[in-house]
């Protein structure tokens, strides 16, 4: 990067005031991974085609491979690293882990953040609404079914219901 001046921005990253300097042409994905050391955000294409690199910017899901790091100035950015708190995992992380919604786990951060955005706006989504919300994220392992079930279970628990996984999804049908 010889001769190129670094850009410097301030943003709120996972709830914390953060400063970062980086080559100005870098995408948010690159800034997060390379300049902020947050490797939880993954990349599948870097062309905006797979949803793997999704993060939340001001609460809305954004493909970090299509957003310039510079555009994060003054914004609130949430990555997978910020989803669990000192109190523990987010209910979505819990159900994704327990139901096997993460197989290889590579697309998982993107799915989790987009699901979180969905449940914030729609606490009781139908199966069709979940499919619609997650249609921009590709997963090659699960066939998506365990992901739907994990979102539904987490949604129920976040509504305060004492919900458990559906037996047939774990043991198959009789």
């Amino acid at each position, binding site marked *: 990067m010889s001769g190129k001046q670094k850009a410097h921005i301030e943003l709120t990253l996972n709830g914390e005031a953060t400063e970062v300097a980086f080559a100005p042409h870098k995408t948010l994905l690159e800034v997060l991974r390379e300049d902020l050391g947050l490797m939880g955000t993954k990349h599948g294409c870097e062309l905006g085609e797979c949803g793997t690199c999704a993060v939340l910017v001001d609460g809305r899901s954004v493909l970090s491979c299509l957003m310039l790091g510079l555009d994060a100035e003054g914004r609130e950015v949430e990555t997978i690293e910020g989803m669990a708190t000192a109190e523990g995992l987010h209910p979505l992380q819990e159900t994704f*882990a327990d139901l*096997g919604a993460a*197989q*290889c*786990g*590579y697309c998982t951060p993107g799915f989790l953040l987009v699901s979180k955005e969905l449940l914030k706006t729609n606490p009781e989504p139908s199966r069709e609404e*979940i499919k619609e919300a997650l*249609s921009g994220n590709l997963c090659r392992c*699960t*066939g998506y079914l365990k992901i739907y079930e994990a979102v539904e279970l987490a949604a129920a628990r976040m509504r305060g219901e004492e919900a458990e996984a559906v037996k047939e999804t774990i043991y198959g049908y009789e």
Partner: protein
Amino acid sequence: MATNNNGKNGRGGNGGPLKVVGKPFRKVDARSKCTGQTKFADDITLPRMLYCKILRSTEPHAIIKSIDTSKALALPGVSAIITGKDLPITYGILPVSQDEHPLCVDRVRFIGDPVAAVAAVDEDTAFDAMNLIEVEYERLQTITNIEEAVMVNEPRIHEYGDGGNVHKKVSLEFGDLDEGFAEADLVREDILFFEGNTHLPMEQHAAVAHFDADRKLTLWSATQTPHYVHRALAKTLELPASHIRVIATPNGGGFGGKSDPFNHEIVVSKLSMMTNRPVKVTLTREEVFYCHRGRHPVLMKIKTGVKRDGAITAMDFQSFLDGGAYGSYGVASTFYTGALQTVTYNVPRYKFRGLRAFTNKPPCGPKRGHGTPQPRFALEVQLDKIAEQLKLDPAEIRRKHLVPPFSVTANYLRVGSMGLGPCIDKVVTGSDWKNKFSGWDRANRKLPEGKGIGIACSSYICGAGLPIYWNSMPHSGVQLRLDRQGGVCVQCGSTDIGQGSDSILAYIVAEVLGIDPFDIRVITADTDLTPVDLGSYSSRVTLMTGNAALQAAERARELLTVAVAEKLSVPIENLSFAERRVFDVENPDTGVTFAEAVVLAESKFGTIGTVGSYTPPRSPGKYKGAGVGPSPAYSYSAAVAEVDVDAATGIVTVERVYIGHDIGKSINPALVMGQVEGSVYMGLGEALMEEMTYRANRNVVHKFPSLLEYKSPTTLEMCDVVTYLIEDADPNGPFGAKEVGQGPLLPIMPAVANAVYDAVGVRIDEVPITPEKVLTALRDKAKGREGRYGPKSVPDVEWPQPLKVQTPAEGGDGREMPRVAVHS
């Protein structure tokens, strides 16, 4: 090896009920994966690390006249550039196909073939330098498909193989085919085509190499087969294997696409050796398409004789594989297109001829189901046509002629437990088949026109019976270390590609030692720390590592039992391991904690470590070519697909799949369900949309090397799945377990094709079943013609004299018969 009685009778520690096996525990690494903590290969950064970019050929087939790297080397920030001459030694996954150079030396064979590599201070500099490398090519005639490869002998893509551009020809005959066809009431011939497609793992391949000051090389790589990478690095880099450490990072999806040793792994290792700095490479998505090693396009001709009740009397199968530019696993793939036709329905006489061609395209290799989904598609679609001709129910024709359990097939595959019957029963009942399938009566349909239902079955190996390179050592090893604090560490060379193989090790060890699986530390896929496991391919991992883990754990339990029995003065046979305790079953209060038991054992025997290993049983087949197909066990699947076909647009929507899978025994049912659903998903993609295709008239360039244009199912295309797990324990599986990672993919494509026929009365004898093909067939039908879309002929090739083997029923001994000169 020692027998695993404990596992085989499906009981837990000392015969008690199972505490861990069969339970839906979360995976041992699940929370890391859901918090972004799992470290994939590209997440590794080391101090002073350089970044590598690989220049790839822009020509499909050409001689390299010259490479000029001077401008690139002059760019500030560039540390090293290498070309083919820096790495002259060839490699390849199979000993018979050592046909790849880490960087092409004098010839490029497809667009994407690696030509030169740069190491620079950052990725941008490496990219700029790569673009400054000047390569002069002299174009050669291209070979674009199977037909051309068979016809065009010169230029040859490789100087080895079975002549011209034919890589491999095989011809095997089991039993008297003429007699079989003479006995038949109906003989059908069909020609079908299965288009190639690719794995498309979400993670692009990446690797980091570090050649350290002590002259030891470490490579972290997203590979399914660290052991084979280890061997390839030693060979190509001319380093002692003992100075090389390969660590397979958790794979962000593999599906077979990370099972070959790859040029980029060798290249970064070499660059690190030259620069004495760590070097990383991360492929772009486009490059992943060029790595490929995916599903071979296969053209097939299947001739089957049947009795009036559908019993098969003989089968003659021909397959033509478009292999792409290199050998890869192709010889094995070729044999696999002929191996497993015999393990579902009884095929008393069987002939197989297979041909793999070299073409100027990215090399094909093993994708989920390796070489078997294509012939399975042909067989199951043909069986549907046979059922129609004989006016038989397609579910019943399958159910009635199953291979018996614990039998040997005509091509000498030893079948163990066989739960296909119950799988069929479940999907037939579950889907309400009898009230939906119209019995071939289009005039009196039970479903509305446009709605259809179809069935297909399949089988898959639970691990290849033979290793990739000939040796008589175990296929899987496990080392177990128990420490005085009560810690248990299980070490195994297996690679977790998302299927949960790390967790399987923990579950099995926890079951035997009566502890919690989350108490166990699992270390895998590190050639310095873990005993060899051959890798995550051929659906071998649960069966083989599971058996090795079982043996290691039983040996450890034995040491603890002796020490505790002595301390407590109770008979050895009274001791049970459960709830993190070792206790007297007759007086459960008398006991010690697991940690205390380890202290007692260490005091008595010294440091507690045990090993276990697994070698598959010998196959009864002894003929040349008998190495592909044998397995310790076979899994079985049956699927019913319900589709909606829009006759106006040709769009096929799969609404629901009912699938029954014979898993033997679920080590973890939740993970088994995940593998079934994932397999159905991937099969759905292959059935409807996924294809690796090229512009034949434009330089054999890939049509769409991107995630957007290479169509794969999103949430909006994925169907509902109703899964039934059949547990028919196999004596060779740990606790009776069989595979699930690949088998359930196989019946999806033919079940969908058969359902499309039921829906609108056209046969699409080719996958993917795209709207264009459906419309073409519907138009054909509207004109009063056959209403079929598919290939019409196969190339006319001269096959070698078949190697003849008498079947077990004919009194054969598994060996080939002496060849006799035939004058005709």
